């Protein structure tokens, strides 16, 4: 498998993600946001960071960058796309994923380890996990509060598009285990077609024992 990591001005998890992808055998190239062409690739990763300084709305300016036309075309052909943190924000601003990510309910930047439950393990991104397994992965964001209207939430649930939900260490999904106010404790969703995945937690920050955990590596191992 080949991956491309898109580098926007202000991306800061791009190299971490490359190291993680390569650690699990995925050949990775870095692609600059102003490039007009994607190299031959199976997976596009939109990394975390603060693209364009998060001006206007997080991810909004990045979603209009030149390479995003190619990323959209890649996804329309069924190619895999994964957006982590700021990458997830870019995906909702590009309308490759539905809904929107707004300011955390406590108005604070949250940087800590949290636990998420894998509520859908039948995706290209979670296939090596078991259903309802609990993963400990760090989050680091100010705008991770997933919002969508009722109809859309119903649709996401009906189509099994909610992939990760914030939970406590025992796997209970409740208000206490919701760090940022996301509806239904949503931490990650997938599109209807199943090829575009966005998540707020950073699996690349939990893919090495030296960094204090390996739970994120299962996402990279699942990629196929």
């Amino acid at each position: 498998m080949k991956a491309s990591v898109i580098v926007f001005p202000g991306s800061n998890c791009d190299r971490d993600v490359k190291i993680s992808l390569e650690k699990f055998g995925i050949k990775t190239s870095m692609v600059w946001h102003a490039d007009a062409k994607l190299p031959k690739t199976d997976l596009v990763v939109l990394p975390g960071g603060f693209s364009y300084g998060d001006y206007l709305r997080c991810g909004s300016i990045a979603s209009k960058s030149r390479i995003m036309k190619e990323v959209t075309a890649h996804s329309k052909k069924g190619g895999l796309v994964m957006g982590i943190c700021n990458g997830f924000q870019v995906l909702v601003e590009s309308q490759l994923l539905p809904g929107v990510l707004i300011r955390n309910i406590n108005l604070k930047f949250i940087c800590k380890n949290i636990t998420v439950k894998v509520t859908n393990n039948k995706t290209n991104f979670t296939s090596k996990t078991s259903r309802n397994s609990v993963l400990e992965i760090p989050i680091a964001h100010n705008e991770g509060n997933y919002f969508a209207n009722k109809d859309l939430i119903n649709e996401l649930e009906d189509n099994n598009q909610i992939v990760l939900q914030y939970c406590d260490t025992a796997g209970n999904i409740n208000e206490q285990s919701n760090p940022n106010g996301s509806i239904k404790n949503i931490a990650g969703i997938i599109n209807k077609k199943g090829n575009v995945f966005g998540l707020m937690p950073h699996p690349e920050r939990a893919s090495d024992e030296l960094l204090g955990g390996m739970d994120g590596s299962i996402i990279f191992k699942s990629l196929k």
Partner: protein
Amino acid sequence: MKLQVIVTLKKDVLDPQGSAIKNSLSNMGFKNIESLRQGKTFEIIVNEKDEKVALSKAKDMCEKLLANLTIEDYSVKAIKE
């Protein structure tokens, strides 16, 4: 021509910043604030004499970039200098 664009959160969208500002104002003694919502304004100067054309351009800008229509509404008007 100078245009003013105002982008606000839709009514049913939670506005944590607006609530924090409202609470702060209340604590400062500004009582009886029923509701406070935060928004954004943009002042745009365009080289366009026809007001209709200028406004329709501004609407296009809102739909394509300035507002996220999932959660935000916008309004545009021309400002007479």
